[in-house]
């Protein structure tokens, strides 16, 4: 009974959908204000999703129909499941076990994998290029992003999110592990294909990238999955790097602060070419995180 509640209402299901749409609205509104626009009204994100969900879905003749229909569901399911392991609203995660951090990270990657596969399955020129770019980007940010989130785990000597949070009672980890924090936050932007990492769906080049052929429900689910991942990702970073989340007030304060940073970066940066994205991650992102790790390991092994 409790499991069902967790899955359907809180933290998964309905609650996360509402929260995801609310955060999307905040993001869109902030961006609009930064860009000297008025921005959407509060119910616009809900209206968009409802519209997409009730619309006709067109499956390309050359695509595998079952795969075409299943991939959006998988993408959203990944984000929904990941939500069960993070301290949403500051409450204890619905499920928790040793190693749930690793599982969460993989669940978060499911979205990009699904997008990549959806692009290949759609067999249009734009989706193929979009899929190639999405997966190229995945391979560039994924390793630094994972390493960045495992930094706090090393300090706490645990792979369990709640234990890591509990172990770090000192100053916020973003002060002691600044590289890790930055890489994690920017990595989340890459994961969500937020500008400047939106080359996989650059509309002036490849229309909508891998999702070009999606319409109606499939597009809506992908969209929803992405927004959920935004909430889960922000929660995870806030919990690990910003001294945990004790109550709803802290949750909204910390995650919204991070969201403001993301929206600002979105507004002020120009889209990176895919080769620039790869270069940025491997030349700077990975090196920064590895240096961080080296420092952590040295500190753990020698000082402490």
């Amino acid at each position, binding site marked *: 009974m409790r499991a069902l509640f967790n899955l359907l209402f809180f933290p998964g299901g309905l609650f996360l959908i509402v929260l995801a749409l609310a955060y999307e609205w905040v993001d869109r509104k902030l961006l609009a204000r*930064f*860009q*000297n*626009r008025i921005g959407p009204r509060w119910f616009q994100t809900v209206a968009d999703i409802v519209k997409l969900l009730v619309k006709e879905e067109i499956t390309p003749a050359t695509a595998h129909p079952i795969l075409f229909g299943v991939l959006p569901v998988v993408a959203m399911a990944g984000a929904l499941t990941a939500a069960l392991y993070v301290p949403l609203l500051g409450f204890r995660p619905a499920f928790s076990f040793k190693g749930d951090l690793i599982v969460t990270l993989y669940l978060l990657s499911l979205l990009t994998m699904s997008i990549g596969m959806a692009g290949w399955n759609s067999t249009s*020129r*734009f989706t*193929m*290029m979009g899929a*190639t770019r999405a997966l190229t980007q995945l391979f560039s940010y994924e390793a630094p992003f994972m390493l960045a989130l495992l930094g706090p785990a090393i300090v706490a000597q645990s792979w369990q999110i709640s234990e890591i949070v509990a172990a770090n009672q000192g100053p916020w980890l973003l002060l002691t592990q600044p590289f890790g924090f930055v890489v994690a936050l920017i990595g989340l932007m890459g994961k969500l294909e937020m*500008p*400047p990492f*939106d*080359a996989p769906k*650059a*509309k*002036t*080049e*490849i*229309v909508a990238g891998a999702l070009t052929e999606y319409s109606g429900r499939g597009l809506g689910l992908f969209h929803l999955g992405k927004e959920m991942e935004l909430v889960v990702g922000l929660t995870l970073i806030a919990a690990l790097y910003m001294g945990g989340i004790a109550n709803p007030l802290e949750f909204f304060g910390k995650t919204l602060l991070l969201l403001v940073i993301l929206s600002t970066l979105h*507004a*002020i*940066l*120009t*889209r*990176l*070419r*895919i*080769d*620039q994205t790869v270069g940025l991650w491997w030349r700077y992102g990975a090196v920064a995180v590895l240096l961080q790790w080296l420092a952590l390991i040295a500190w753990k092994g020698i000082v402490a």
Partner: protein
Amino acid sequence: MSTDLVLQKVETLLAGFAKGTAKPEPNRLDLNIDASDLIAAITALRGARWGYLAALTGVDLGKEANQIEALYHLCEGDAIATLRVRVPRAGGAVPSVYALHPNSMFFERELMEMFGVTVTGLADTSHLFLPDGWPDGMYPLLKDTDVKAAAARTMGSEPPEMGRQGDRFIVPIGPQHPALKEPGHFEFAVDGELVTGATVRLGYVHRGIERACEQQNYTQNLYLTERVCGICSHSHANAYVNGVEQLAKVLAPPRAQAIRQLVACLERIHSHFLWLGVAAYEAGFETLLMYSWRDREVVMDVLEQMTGNRVNYSASVLGGVKYDVTAAHAAAIRRAMDTIEERATHYLHVVTTDTSFLARAQGIGVTSTEEADALGLLGPTLRAAGVTRDVRVDAPYGSYQQFPVTASVDSAGDLAARFKVRMLETLESVRVIRAILDGLPEGDLTVKFPRKIPAGETISRFEAPRGELFYYIKSNGTDKPERVKIRTPSICNWIYVLTKAVGSQMADVPPLLAGIDPCFSCNDRMIVVNRHGGDRRIWTREDLRRHASTQTRR
């Protein structure tokens, strides 16, 4: 060097080929050349680095003469040398000068499909403007071609199958694509992210304006030419008006000339701000689009206040201007210029210093000065490569001698330089606008203008925001022109996109494309047809009127 000396040089260089020369206007030299001598003549000019190929005009001399004249206009400073090649009306042929002037590719394809003149040695002889299903042997600019019948036959034809081009992976852009809000079709062959081939197809909005010009009187044509382009409408109207005034030997009053220049400067500002946003958006810098388009409204507002319109101002009329600049207008323009100056300075700062923007613009699509000149590029695209060529400076028309302009040049030759040059031009326009308002001559706005224009031909060049606009107008003594040729700057700059796209990253193609500030409706001017695949219903004028009446609230 004075114009006479420049033209004398041409006479000397081509002494061996010219079968007769004429000097119809002080700055023009006409040379009759045989088709067989054409390559040698143009090679001689090119070897002496004389001029660039500005346009290629075809003129049907009619059934009696049974000849077509191909006019190769080459320009250097304010001097224009025209090589006149006569070929028979049926089965005439001229050699391609593509190897000497790459941009001739587009002119020659146009000559082939519009006049039926064979251009030998041209690699791509497919239609550039006309629909694929256009009936063979129907050449729309020949006087006796029934264009309506040809268009009707095109309508029924089936579109050709899109064949696979070997194993190449083609990314199509346009005519419906988020990168282009305008109708052109590009096919980029890509290998991964690398572009290995590029082709362009135009003509989706061909409206038959050149042909229509021959069927309407000079006053009606003013409104027609103004509608060639939705952004530089004043440039087209003014280029046309200048040409007709030259033919009629009527000079507009000084105040009218100054007001024309004022509107042209305002138009340049609005065009450059519009472009700034679009080009930044193509590269993925959305915020700059939002800001520059907001600031563009400042100029649009003063234009609207002055003329009542945002797009087609109808400022120029034959022999003068329609609107005066009142004290209230002047004050509003001055206020607007303060805002524009501040914003343009800011954008100049952004496009020269912003790291993430420069990462996408610096070193992209670099052309050297020699290459830009050899390709025959025009306007800011050319000036960003360090070539100081600007009609307003080289051949000042209207009041440009009274209110001179300095050309904005940058030597980098890349995409970033084009942003810089356009912002510098905006600031220069602000300066000129203030100078005009300070020194606006008093006097009449119009002079009396004859209805019939004496026979003759003239060339009018005008520096539009996108580069040199070229009008060739031939009159036959009646109230309708014999031939109007419009060569827009965009058509000369396509060659740049096609050359530079190959070998660059796919992601750089949209900004490269936008970098020349292409204007598709300017390119496309010929025929009233929807291309296959579009809506096949033909709307009559009555249908359109009925439709329009349902679109407004009563």
